[in-house]
């Protein structure tokens, strides 16, 4: 069964922000908003939860640090502790300053790359993915808000037109193809 959604198109981000607030004000559910660029305050107006990417990144950084320490401890101290230029290799702490550049870089490497990969996975982005935008103009200069239909579509269309939409249409909710 296809769900119906009402798509309202705006040509100004301030109008869009007001419309989002009005729609949320009468307890209608916003399915999705498509914008050509980040609109400051949109996530807050839509009531979206904060991202946890930063927390994930911190954990990835810690993992990177542990990997670096264990790797160098095994290679330089445990497996083959050679005397290289008189550097102390009795314990890890003795030779710590020489290891810090690698520890630092590995922390950054893990934190950055794993966070980016997490972002792609959570936002389902990959090469050859089929684009999902319902109207190509939303990548250029138009803003589109999809509101879940309440059953009485004509009334909803009228309401959205009053919020400043330049165009409102009723469409089938596309199932997201993966």
């Amino acid at each position, binding site marked *: 069964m296809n769900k119906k959604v009402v798509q309202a198109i705006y040509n100004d981000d301030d109008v869009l922000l007001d419309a989002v607030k009005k729609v949320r004000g009468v307890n209608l559910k916003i399915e999705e908003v498509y914008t050509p660029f980040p609109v400051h305050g949109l996530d807050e107006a839509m009531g979206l939860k904060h991202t946890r990417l*930063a927390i994930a990144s*911190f954990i990835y950084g810690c993992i990177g640090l542990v990997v670096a320490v264990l790797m160098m401890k095994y290679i330089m101290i445990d497996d083959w502790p050679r005397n290289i230029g*008189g550097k102390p290799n009795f314990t890890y702490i003795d030779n710590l*300053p*020489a290891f*810090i550049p690698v520890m630092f870089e590995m922390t950054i490497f893990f934190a950055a790359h794993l966070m980016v990969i997490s972002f792609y996975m959570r936002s389902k982005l990959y090469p050859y993915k089929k684009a999902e935008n319902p109207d190509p103009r939303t990548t250029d200069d138009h803003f589109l808000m999809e509101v879940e239909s309440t059953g009485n579509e004509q009334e909803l269309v009228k309401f959205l037109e009053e919020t400043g939409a330049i165009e409102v249409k009723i469409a089938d909710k596309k199932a997201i193809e993966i």
Partner: protein
Amino acid sequence: MYSFSGKIKLVAILSMVVGLLGIGYSFIAAPSTVEALGVPAGGDAAHAEHVLQLLKNKPWAALYVAALFFMLISLGVLAFYAINRAAQAGWAPILFRVMEGITGYLPVGALIFFVLLVLSGLHLNHLFIWMDPQVVAHDTVIQGKTAYLNVPFFLIRTAIYLLGWIGYRQITRRLSKAQDQASDNRPFVKAFKWSAGFLVFFLVTESMMSWDWIMGLDPHWFSTLFGWYVFSSFITASIAALILVTITLKGQGYLEHVNDSHLHDLAKYLFGFSIFWAYLWFSQYMLYWYSNIPEEVTYFITRLNDFEPVVLGMLAINFLLPLLILVDSDIKRKPWVIGIMSVVILAGHYLDFYNMIMPATVGDQWSIGIGEIGSVVFFFGLFTYVTFLTLTKVPLIEKRHPLMGESEHFHY
């Protein structure tokens, strides 16, 4: 207008009195003869003489560290102020008067510090061994440096740095007040030009000041990034002091438009500069440790052997603590967390300066006792008194700074 709160005044005056008593006691209690040390008969006379000189230096060195530290906090705020003026930062103008209040200490602190240096030049203490002609006579390394390290040139250089900094401070203060009364933006533009010029002067003199006042204590040692390292240390302490004064004023109900976004920005600076400090500390340490050239590495050997708790303690306070606590965005908006972190970081950077100066002046005879604490308490009191007194002189918000509207509505 800010009115000096009685509580702060009382704390400041009390600190000055208690600090002075501590400083006085430490000078009286310092031994003046070898006999006073209680060396057992037949002990090594040369060693006893060495220890005596170190102990005689102790109250002077304690005073020197504290005087330098609080003056540099004030200087760091001045540099931060100049940076924000030159960069035309949109968030900062609301705090300019607070910064001007803190830099009000600079003339006072500079005067005290200059007097201390003159006293060293008059041989009342042995903080700078290159000032001792008997030492220089037997030391070819210092002899090679006397063209730079001689008392008259040293004091002239010092006077140029101090007058330059104070001059900039007074000029921008006057322009900032003139802008309140002006009908156009001419004073603002002038202050912008002065700030850009000052930053050039500051970077040169800051580097030279760190050679003179801190590296000069170890005339056998040299480091190329030392100026930057000293700068990173006192700019971090300055941001911490600025945060504390801002929180205090906000808590007393002044600074109506300062919001948690301004605090968040200051905390980001505190965090960023703490990491920057750790980067420079490590860059300096690691290069000496790695190449391990005997005549250069002694600097760190004495510090790690005799000052291990200070070195490790300040690394934990100045790097690990901000790294783990100030990394969180929500925490950077909480005044009480930022306040406590600022106090702790100030203590950490005091230890940093302690660790730069003490090994060269008192060596293994160091301790944090009445003299050290008394000096810090005295300069804390003086710093607080002068800062809050300066804040009462003009309104806390500039009237017609062109960027003030943006700053008042700043939101991050």
